[in-house]
């Protein structure tokens, strides 16, 4: 069995989350995960990072440009 090192593990995190590892790679990844607290935490923090970005608020169009665009849309001939 090929043992994964932490420094390899951290480079496979996204591939793992995207389900892009081969079955053998995924097995080695999961095996490592069960016995390495540091890597478990790293994986979790990458997930947390993605969640934090998801929670970022988005800006909105200014009311003026929104109105202008709606007017342009309305006035466009069919």
């Amino acid at each position, binding site marked *: 069995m090929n043992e994964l090192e932490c420094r390899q593990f951290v480079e496979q995190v996204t591939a793992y989350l995207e389900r*892009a590892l081969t079955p053998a790679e995924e097995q080695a990844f999961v095996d490592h995960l069960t016995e390495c607290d540091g890597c478990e935490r790293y994986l979790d*923090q990458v997930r947390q*990072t993605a969640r*934090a970005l998801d929670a*970022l608020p988005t800006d909105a169009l200014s009311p003026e440009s929104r109105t202008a*665009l709606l007017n342009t849309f309305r006035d466009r001939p069919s």
Partner: protein
Amino acid sequence: MDDLPVDKVLVRRLCDRDESAFALVLDRWSGGMLRLARSYVSTEASAAEVVQETWLAVIEGIDRFEGRSSLRTWVYRILTNTAQRRGSREHQMVPSDELGQPTVDPQRFQSEGQPFPGHWWEPPPVWPEPEGGVLTDEVRGLLVAALEELPERQRVVIALRDAEGWPADEVCELLDITAANQRVLLHRARAFVRAKLETYYTQEETS
């Protein structure tokens, strides 16, 4: 958030000059488009102009939309083209060999001859859980600043995937990149932002 009508319905309504359909996509997509435009241009003001210009092109061109991609991808492609044209002065390409570099500081791992080569010296420190999942203003500011520091393509990918929640295949289609390439860009971007959060949380701990 309610789902938008399926493309076929949406496009027909837009072609029929149904204003409520236009308002629907305008309100749904403009926020993400502003964020994405900011990946290409350097000010909020030019990002707003890019988005405005994009919608004008959409109004102009909707009758010619052929449905070869999703409506959203089509709109966003107009956006990226518009933004890229405008942002070309500040366009910075990342040398591709940089993409092969480790995403975590190699010093964090033991080297050959140490008891556990390739393993953490110190595991990553624990982060506080954000209360009720809500980010503080400080963390938000830090995330926005971190995105700002990323090279353009990494920033575009992480904004679409993590901030906007796009599926990988739609991002690949929009940017015309391979799945593997998309993954590498996303991975580097996430590792960079994670490291920024780690620095922030560790400083907070010791201050």
